[in-house]
């Protein structure tokens, strides 16, 4: 809880401001919680792939976000609301009880699965602000169940695109639209349940916000919105001004676009000048044939995510972007137009976030975080049960976070773009005809460092009916990087059993339409995080413990860390000193 200095351009009483900040965030939090609890698909209910907030009446800029909203949506929602504002500006006819629905990735979206509901909040006959809800629906048509089509070459192969349209017009639900949505999904009931969950959240949000506006009045709340934005901007400027001026360049690569084997470069030139920052991505690769492109709004949103992870004290609203200039030309894969495919956007934004971390590590090693594992590994297994009913198991998998100045990276974490929890094995086995044969940490998967990366994981799944397998992943060729002397983590690896023996994807980590028989297995081994700092300076006892715990092989202990162990696994102090001395020489 905070209060604002009164010398700013607002007349709001500082304590009221603090109270409003808490109340408004609580409203967004409560909307998030309502959707998590009433959603049908586990990607919202368990993985929390959703977000709610309040947005500026004229600009759509983010005013208030919940504390648990999916980080990438926190950045992207302002663009979604702006898309509705533009539509209303073109067409007029806005009613206080309208609710817009859309999933258009190029018009303030991310990918086709993310359905936005945007509604106006009217007070005294005038538009006061916007309220929005976004959640990831399980399936919206296209060639691949779950829509992560690694081989899509245009948007039409990825699924059904809905531009901003009125789901509810002046309070009346458009059932024709619902029928169209239902006819275009493999799992219409799941989508219907999620839609109702989002409507539940909006209903509740309207109720809570109305109470708050009745209590405090529109002028006071509007003044508070301005103050929040000013505060976020001030905090961001304060953080930037502490970084040394200069241009810091960092590059990383995507393995391929799912269609050709060519690598894709993500290049950032980050310039600090006083309390301002320029993020210039001009040197990145051109738009690609496959689904690894992203729209401009998505690129800005993921930079916002990266900055929020580094400058954790800056509040989540539009003000923090004011001191930042983005240079993201349409000549790159980071600002594409329709119908370029964008279904693999998660992989691209993880790489963009990584290069922001990498460039900031050059500017200030004390804030450096080595690369997180950097791929969501969207894996679907789909088939038919003995009774003929269709099943689709779709999930994202975890890996290690990067070593950092404070600690080793976290083992088996979610990606920076999300706060998703993974569905339990027992829930998956109860819902789908699969049996996991391994769910374990992956030894030797972390980058070495004074603080090593977190470990990735091994997931091995046996299908209990015949199944089609789809995977959209990354980091099969280019490993998560270390910083400040730390080393890279292990590569992502995916194999499946076939009658001709074990196979792996011709294009690393991406595959569609693989068929396995019942009793055959797929195995996914995910990267850890990169290391931070010189591994030779890591506490030798910690290295010996990592070997005893099976995080690390004795060979790696010797090679990467210069730590020797005796035959019974205890630390060989003399041999370690000799090893480290010789490597230092």
């Amino acid at each position, binding site marked *: *809880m*905070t*209060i*604002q*200095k*009164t*010398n700013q351009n607002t007349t709001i009483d*500082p*304590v009221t401001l*603090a*109270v409003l900040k*808490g109340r408004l965030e609580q409203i967004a939090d*409560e909307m998030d919680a309502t959707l998590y*609890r009433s*959603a*049908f698909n586990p990607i919202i*209910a368990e993985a929390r792939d959703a977000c709610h907030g309040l947005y500026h009446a004229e600009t759509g800029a983010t005013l208030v976000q919940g*504390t*648990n*909203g999916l*980080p990438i949506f926190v950045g992207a929602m302002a663009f979604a609301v702006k898309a509705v504002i533009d539509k209303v500006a073109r067409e007029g006819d806005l009613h206080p009880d309208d609710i817009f629905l859309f999933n258009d990735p190029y018009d303030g979206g991310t990918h086709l699965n993310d359905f936005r509901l945007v509604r106006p909040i009217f007070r005294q006959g005038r538009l006061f602000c916007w309220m929005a809800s976004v959640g990831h629906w399980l399936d919206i048509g296209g060639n691949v169940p779950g829509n992560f089509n690694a081989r899509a070459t245009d948007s039409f192969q990825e699924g059904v695109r809905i531009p901003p349209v009125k789901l509810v017009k002046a309070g009346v639900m458009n059932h024709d639209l619902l029928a169209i949505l239902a006819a275009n999904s493999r799992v219409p*009931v*799941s989508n219907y*349940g999620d839609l*109702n969950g989002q409507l*539940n959240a909006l209903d*509740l949000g309207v109720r809570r916000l109305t109470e708050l506006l009745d209590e405090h009045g529109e002028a006071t709340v509007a003044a508070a919105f301005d103050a929040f934005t000013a505060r976020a901007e*001030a*905090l961001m400027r304060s*953080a930037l001004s502490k970084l040394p001026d200069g241009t810091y360049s960092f590059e990383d690569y995507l393995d391929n676009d799912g269609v050709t084997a060519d690598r894709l470069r993500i290049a950032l030139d980050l310039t600090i000048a006083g309390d301002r920052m320029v993020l210039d991505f001009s040197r990145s690769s051109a738009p690609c044939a496959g689904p690894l492109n992203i729209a401009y709004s998505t690129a800005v949103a993921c930079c916002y995510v990266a900055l929020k*992870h580094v400058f*954790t004290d800056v509040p989540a609203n539009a003000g923090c972007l004011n001191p930042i200039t983005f240079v993201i030309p349409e000549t790159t894969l980071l600002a594409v137009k329709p119908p370029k495919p964008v279904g693999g956007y998660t992989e691209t934004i993880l790489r963009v976030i990584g290069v922001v971390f990498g460039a900031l590590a050059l500017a200030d090693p004390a804030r450096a975080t080595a690369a997180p594992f950097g791929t969501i590994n969207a894996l679907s297994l789909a088939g038919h049960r003995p009774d003929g009913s269709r099943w689709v198991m779709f999930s994202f*998998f975890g890996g290690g*976070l*990067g070593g950092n*100045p*404070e*600690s080793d*990276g*976290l*083992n*088996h974490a*979610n990606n920076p773009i999300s*706060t998703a*929890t*993974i*569905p*339990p*094995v*027992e*829930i998956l*086995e109860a819902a789908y005809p699969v*049996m*996991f*044969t*391994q*769910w*374990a940490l992956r030894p030797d998967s972390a980058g070495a460092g004074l603080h090593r990366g977190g470990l990735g*994981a091994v997931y091995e799944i046996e299908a209990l009916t015949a199944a089609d397998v789809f995977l959209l992943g990354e980091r099969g060729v280019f490993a998560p990087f270390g910083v400040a002397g730390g080393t890279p983590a292990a590569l992502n690896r995916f194999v499946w059993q076939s009658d001709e023996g074990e196979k792996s994807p011709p294009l690393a980590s991406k595959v569609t339409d693989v068929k396995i028989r019942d009793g055959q297995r797929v195995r996914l081994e995910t990267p850890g995080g990169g290391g931070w700092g010189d591994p030779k300076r890591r506490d030798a006892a910690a290295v010996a413990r990592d070997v005893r715990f*099976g995080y690390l092989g004795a060979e790696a202990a010797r090679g990467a860390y210069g730590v020797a162990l005796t035959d019974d696994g205890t630390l060989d102090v003399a041999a370690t000193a000799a090893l480290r001395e010789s490597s230092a020489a």
Partner: protein
Amino acid sequence: MSNGISTGAIVGVDVGGTFTDLFHYDEARGSFRTAKVPSNRGDEAVGFLAGLQSFGAVAELGSIVHGTTVGTNALLERKGAKVGLITTAGFRDVLEMRRRDRRQTWGLWGDFVPVVDRDLRLEVAERTLADGTVRAAVDPEEVRDAARRLAAMGAEALAIVFINAYANPANELAALEAARAVWPNANLECSSRILPEIREFERTSTTALNAYLQPVVGSYLAKLDNALAGEGFGGRFHIVQSNGGVMSTDTARRLPVRTALSGPAAGVIAAAAIAKAAGFPNVITGDLGGTSFDVSLVVEGQTMLAAQTTIDFGLVVRTPMIEITTIGAGGGSIAGVDPGGMLQVGPESAGSRPGPVCYGQGNSRPTLTDANVLLGRINAERPIGGKLARLDVDAARTAIATHVAEPLGLDVMAAAEAVVRIANSKMAGAIRLVSIERGHDPAKFAAVPFGGGGALHVGALIKEVGLKAALVPRFPGVTSALGCVIADIRHDQVQTVNLPLAGIDAASLDRRMVEEATAARAVVESAGLSVERIDLVFELDMHYIGQTHTVAVPLPVSVANGTTGVDEATIRAAFERAYQASFSRLLPGVGAKIVNLRTAAIGRRPHFDLAALAPAAGTTVEGAHAGSRPVWFDGAWYETAVYNRLDLPVGAHIQGPAILEQPDATTVIDPDLSARVDGYGNVIVERSAR
């Protein structure tokens, strides 16, 4: 019903970090006594016995009920036992992999150390499928071998967790039996006997934390048992569980993880009982400590239970617990201005050492307590708790001037008031979270502060949240000890069933419910405390098929003549009622499913007449008047009357502004509020009649 156990005096014992509070109740005479003795951290038995002896011969006591933080502290400070874990092949890392979460939404730093080291987690070949089919039977020799290896590595307790054991415990039970044959002590359990519920991480975490606590809680209870035996005590000795019910020490030794919130739960139970007797069945309890504010909701006299709680990142305990919401605002919360020019209060805290600036123990950054002192709300000459002679008001003023007033360009008194108001709004936020967010109208609720600090802030809570009133119990400091005496005996069980509702075999579900009820009832009966009756409560965790979260569905049935009489229509009606209460829309046409069956047996304790707490006749308001002092309210000083709270007679009416002082609490009555003393000695704070 009565089971004929002796009804000598019963003593509730609440061992806190600094003091051990005791409440002695003579059921035959209807009279009570209280005692407060210093706690002896590390050897709690010393303070425990000293407290009991203050009531006379320990051998004369009928029963002792104990609220303990030994388990809580072992969890928070990571001082549990060395645990060995045996799992299904391929799954030894479930405990360490968690649910693939991270510490916070924003920021990627920080790691996680599980309570069982990886080399102490061994795997055996066995597998049960989700439908309960045993795909690979367990080999007892492989289990014995693993257990021997873990014991040889120094494990003091053993946990066995197999995948899908909730659906069929056969492999786990066989493994437990095999391990028992070679395990050197009694500290071993398997997950299906602790939590037969779907979700392997939550079950593994709960089972592992139970093992982590078994040696700690076991040796603590043994020490107390010995001490009591040495005094010739022959009565019953019981422990308060996190669910607010009482259990036998035998059950506590087997399921120590159920003591994780023992102490706070007892306080909530007492606050609920006191408020209900006073005519306030709907209350929000608030415990303001040094670093945090804990709130809990009581609706129609019933405490709310949460199915699980997270002790710390990655440490999940899934067992029904009184739902306590904690925010980082306490007396020691530090106030300061951040780089964006904003005043923050907490979550950083000076705790009790070094504590607030006014304690003079080395801290120079201002806290909430320092603001309360500067505003005159706390009596600097007579600090509560009795440890310090006086508080340093000047040091508090300097700290607030330097760290708050100057950076914000405010007058020092306005700055102190701002600190209190920010803290108030944080507390109000916590109350809103548990009330308005759950669909409850705050105008029907009263705040019940217990512990030392809450009563300082009740006025703001009434006004900011729109509460009906506040009720300050006559002895806020011994609320938890009183809760031990009046808590019911309770045993909770859960079983995952995964049954679609449409066309359900109700007779089969009925048999299961009766079996669960019989087992739960037996645990309550074996506790041996006198009870008036045993209630059986059934609740289903249900959802629409396709959802993963569930809603709690209370079933309006009980066991009579060996059956619950449950049927599909009853369940459906109960589900739709519960679902609609949580969300605005039912989903007609979508099937519903029962995920878990929850069963509780509650042994209702004999009625405790709280009127025993009321002040004796013969006191007067004038006699309680102890002078006045200036206190700062809403931007101005008010010369404010001060009363000795315990000397106020029943029926006393005090118009604010006023301060009511007693050894363990200070109640502040704002200028626009008034207070009255009810027939139980409670102070009721309300808006003044206009």
